Each structure stands twice: as C-alpha cells, then as structure tokens.
C-alpha cells in the first residue's frame, strides 16, 4: 500500500510529558508499521475542550479551532486533519460543521482569524477525522490484520468506547448504543473482545472528574466493575480523557468503595503497536500506571513468522 499522509492535530494531552504522551508514542509506532505519515499542524492550539464553553463562549471557541484548520490548510494543503484525542476531534469537527452551516458565523470567525493573520487561509474544505476513522475507513480491518506478528492471544479485553468518539458524530456505520469497532480491532489483534461489556458507552465524567470527583468516580466504578463482571483483564479505549479517568482513580475508588480494582487501561494503538511487533517502550507500555504485564510479556517475546 502506498504511503498515506495526513495533517495531524495531536492536541495538548499528547504533548511530551503530558497525560496522554504514551498514546502519542504508540500512535507513532503504529503509524510507522502502517506506513502513515502524520504532518503535525505547526503551532496548533488547544481546541477549547469540552469545558471551554463556559468561560470561552461560542465564537472564541470556534476561532480557536478555526485557527488550527486554517494553519492546516496553509501548511498541509489538501490533507485531511486527523486527531487522536476525542475532544480535539469533536471540537474541531463541530466548528467545521457550524462554520459551513452559517455564513454569519463564518464571517465572524474570519474576522477574528484576521487578528491572527489567517483569515485568507480558512477555506473549510477539509475533513476532520479521528485516527480510528482512518484505520477503519482508509485501511479496513482486513488490511489492519496483515501486519500482526504477535497476536495478543488469550487476553480478554473490554472495549470502552466512551462518549466523544462515539457521540454526537461517531464512526460511520456504528450505532451510538453499541459501537463495535473496538471489539473488532481487539479481535483482529488476536485478543478476545468482551462483547457483552455493557458499559462500553458510559460516561466517565469527562472534565467533571476534576470538578465533581465523587459523581465521576461513581461512573468510573460502573465502567470498571462491568469489565470485571464480564471477565475482562484489560480495558481498551480510543480517548485520552477516558483512559486517564478510568486508570488513575482506581486507588481512590478502591479506598472509597472497598473494591480491589487493578486493571490496565490501554489505548487501541498500544494494542496494535504490540501486535505489530513493537517493543514495550514503542507501545508506550511504560506510560501506564496500572501496568499491562500480559502485553509486556508478549512484547518481550520473539515475533512469529
């Protein structure tokens, strides 16, 4: 297959030494195997995230996202924008949709962009895509299975899709209530998806894990409990906020509820990086607070073939 190129919007959490830096590491490894070139948008800024609305309001938020789109169009012309973070993808896609739906909003946004010297660069003729869409739509499951050299045999994994890669836009062809792409990805990596996992689209609290920790942790408890109930030994997710919330509060939840949660929460790209023969480091496994020892073992094994 020919090399695929995308304009890449990594987002704040994937910066070096940020909360999803291990996501970034594994994505790089995965993309290397799939021969994907990610051209980072120069000097991208924050999307405003899901909490930016309150202080930021409407237009400033759209202006922030429009700036990224304009920068992409300027520096990576003709390339679709790909985000790895759910919130980045959602925010950018939302702005893109709103601006194409309202001439007034577009004019206002351009007026603001002018202050950043970018009004002429915004055309709005690119697609805003999540990395998962790239994998499913531009490669397809069959193609993604080909580079597997270390199948993740015998690992039962709960696919936690969460909210923002699933709603309101979601991945084409998937249902909002029971999206299956994570299960399918898990399966082609040789692992065993826990298909009955019934909290796969439950909200983890998102940004409110900071401001409303008790309420959010009650959600997270449900998410983890159900994974255990269905026999999962690992959770996989496509979203940095989901990953962090479900992973880092396990001790606090244990303390509060007397549970004994200790379950690794991985990114799909980490599973793929390992299955594709990457080392533990290349898969960012060292970035997990709850270590995925089964994956580390597989990563340490020699590849098949």
């Amino acid at each position, binding site marked *: 297959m020919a090399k695929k190129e995308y304009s890449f919007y990594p987002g704040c959490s994937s910066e070096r030494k940020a909360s999803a830096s291990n996501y970034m590491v594994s994505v790089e490894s995965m993309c290397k195997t799939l021969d994907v070139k990610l051209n980072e948008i120069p000097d991208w800024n924050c999307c405003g995230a899901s909490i930016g609305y*309150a*202080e*930021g309001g409407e237009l400033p938020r759209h202006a922030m996202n429009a700036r990224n789109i304009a920068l992409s169009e300027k520096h990576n012309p003709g390339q679709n924008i790909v985000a790895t973070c759910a919130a980045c993808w959602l925010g950018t896609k939302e702005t893109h949709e709103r601006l194409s739906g309202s001439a007034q909003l577009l004019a206002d946004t351009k*007026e603001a962009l002018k202050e950043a010297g970018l009004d002429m660069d915004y055309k709005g003729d690119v697609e805003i895509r999540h990395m998962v869409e790239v994998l499913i739509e531009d490669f397809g499951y069959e193609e993604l299975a080909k580079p597997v050299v270390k199948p993740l045999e015998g690992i039962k994994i709960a696919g936690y899709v969460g*909210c*923002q890669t699933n*709603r309101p836009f979601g991945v084409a062809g998937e249902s909002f209530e029971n999206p299956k792409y994570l299960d399918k990805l898990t399966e082609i990596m040789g692992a065993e998806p826990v298909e009955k996992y019934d909290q796969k689209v439950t909200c983890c*609290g998102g940004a409110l894990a900071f401001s409303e920790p008790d309420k959010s942790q009650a959600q997270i408890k449900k998410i983890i409990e159900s994974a255990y109930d269905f026999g999962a030994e690992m959770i996989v997710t496509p979203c940095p906020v989901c990953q962090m919330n479900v992973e880092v509060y396990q001790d606090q939840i244990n303390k509060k509820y007397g549970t004994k949660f200790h379950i690794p929460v991985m990114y799909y790209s980490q599973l793929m990086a390992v299955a594709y023969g990457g080392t533990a480091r290349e898969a960012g496994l060292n970035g997990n607070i709850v270590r995925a020892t089964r994956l580390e073992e597989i990563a340490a094994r020699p590849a098949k073939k």
Partner: protein
Amino acid sequence: MSERNNAMVEKYRNDFLKEVEANVEEGPWVKMCMQCGVCSGSCPFGPYWEHPPQEIFMMIRAGKRDEVLKSESMWMCTSCYNCIVRCPRELPITHIMHGLANYAHRLGIAPKMNPTRRFAKLFWQNIMKGGRVNELKLSVGLYFMDGFANGVKKGLAMLPVGIGMFKTGRLNPLGLLGGGKCKGAGDIHKMVKKAQEIENRRKGFAS
C-alpha cells in the same frame, strides 16, 4: 456583571424564551422540545440535576428565568452527548445546556461556588496563557481554588495520582515554570479578544 443582567431583564421583560432564543447558543431549538424526557433519563449525572434538561426547557417556556439561570443544573453536563443522539426531536441539548451555563456565567448570576464553573474558568485562563493546556498548573490551580489549606489537603489526596503520572512520564514537574505554549500565543490573544468583541455585539452585551 449584574448590570448586564438587569439590562437583559429590562430588554426582554417577561419573554424569557425570546431572550434564550436570541442570546443562548442553539437557543432557537428550545421551543422544539416535545417533553418526552428521554434526555433526562439518558444523562449520566441525571440524578444530580435539580432540573433535568426536560424541565429546563419547560421552565424556559414558563418564563422561570431566575430559576433556570441561577441553577446548578446545567453545570452538571459532562458533555457526553447522550441526550443529543437520543433526542427524538434532534435538539442539540448538550450545546443548549452549555449555552445556558455560559449565558448565566456572563450575566454574572451563575452559582458562584459551583466547582465546574470555577474549573471551567480556570481552564480557559490556563489555555489562554499560551494557547495550550498546562496540565500541572491546571491541577494545582484546581486544588487551590478554595484557599491554601484546602488546596494542600486536596493536593495531598491527589498526590499518589500525580506521582503515578509523573513516574510514567505523563506529568511534567517543571510545568509550573512554563510549557503548553504556542509560538503564536500573541496572535491567539488578539484573535480571541476580537471574537469576544464580536460575540458581545451579536448578543447585545455592551462589552
């Protein structure tokens, strides 16, 4: 801030629905609610809302301005978008809730101590510094929101999490000194300021 509020009260008199339609993000959708209640039943934080979205819509139509805008309810939105995808009338409920929260906040009548409101403010200030999130400053800021003593307590409670993040290379201990900065931070400031100006003009706020 409350002058702003008084001006709006004056301008719209008893017609809160009209006020919402004119000033709140996706406000014109409010009248399309058919009161089925699917949104309320779909919200992960539903039980914590004093008035779930279905009620909020009804209250807007009933002109219950203060009860809506001063409510903690909208601040319970986790942005999970469940209500949006399930609403049979396809109302952008999440955005309307965000819009109402933002409107109340700008009028200065949103609940002062609501943690999500304060966190949101902190967050925006954080990204406005350099254009990107500085996660350490954000968390530290969050813990010290309620004063120094409380902050130390919360910080200590969260210390294991922080240490975990730090150990796995997912938290920059030097973050307090800088980081999360775009080269075009200055441009971003100007751009956002302009956007705010325009928005104030459009929504009838004297900026």
